[in-house]
């Protein structure tokens, strides 16, 4: 056992891969949420460092009214996806929590996959596996039909981040 040097991009990829393997294997959803959330926390900055738009900034741009600060948007999104309650607890928090673990796990992975695809494309096998799962289980053709009818403001995210290969 010795210390080695790692890049955070590889760490986030490993965390997201584990999250997707657990998710597709029907394993613990809390673990999926935590791993996808941790991967997202790294991927978001890596996307920004490449001059592209991470999911959270896209989401902020769609918010009605003034654009919310990034920290606030991140906190709200991570609360909604169950990421924060799975790693933090305050002294006054109730012992129990109401959450849709299945939906939060899927959504937390989807958010992280969006940023991972922006950085690395769709070539990793585990990314392909999740996208295929989503296409089959979330009616991909219908989603794309609805996407194509969406206003340009919504489609801008995907176009801005298209990888030039």
């Amino acid at each position, binding site marked *: 056992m010795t210390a080695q040097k790692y890049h955070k991009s590889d760490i986030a990829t490993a965390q997201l891969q584990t999250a997707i393997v657990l998710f597709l294997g029907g394993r613990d959803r809390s*673990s999926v949420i935590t791993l996808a959330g941790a991967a997202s926390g790294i991927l978001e900055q890596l996307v920004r460092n490449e001059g592209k738009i991470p999911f959270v900034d896209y989401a902020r741009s769609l918010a009605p009214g003034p654009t919310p600060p990034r920290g606030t948007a991140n906190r709200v999104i991570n609360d909604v996806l169950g990421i924060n309650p799975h790693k*933090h607890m305050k002294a006054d928090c109730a012992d129990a*929590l109401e959450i849709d673990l299945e939906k939060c796990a899927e959504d937390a992975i989807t958010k992280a996959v969006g940023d991972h695809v922006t950085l690395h494309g769709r070539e990793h096998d585990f990314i392909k596996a999740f996208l295929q799962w989503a296409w089959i289980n979330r009616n991909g053709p219908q989603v794309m039909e609805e996407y194509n009818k969406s206003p340009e403001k919504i489609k801008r995210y995907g176009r801005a981040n298209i990888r030039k290969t």
Partner: protein
Amino acid sequence: MAAQIYERLDLAANQLETAIGLFIGGHDRFSVITLAGAADGILTQIVSNRGEETFAEILVREDDDKTMSRSRMGTHVNTILLINELKHMDKHGDGCITVDAEECALATILKALANFVTLRDNEVDFVKAFLLWVRLNLDPHRYNVNCEPNWKPTPRKE
């Protein structure tokens, strides 16, 4: 599946069980650290809410630095174990970290386990599995493999 009510202790236990399963199975060490660290974030608060001594408080009690606080100790341990580094990235910096991932994964599980057994006991299957792994795989001169209360590390005989 709709929203359901879960005990936070169960959500933490599930994450710790996954971390141990990944660790024993030889899977990604960073995922192990992230999961055990997240579980511990919940377990520590539940232990504290129940009026028991948390792992960080035990370390503070045994530390030579009598100015050390529970909060500082918690932050210090999380920094050593890279728990925050594995879920955040700063704007600046090269994005690289140097770490013994194996040691960190083991230590993060042990930290979370200390709080978990305060709340539940050693008879949970995944705890028994991990403690058995510890006895079979770790150096008994360096690690307290039998969880003896007054154990101290001993130099290995040449």
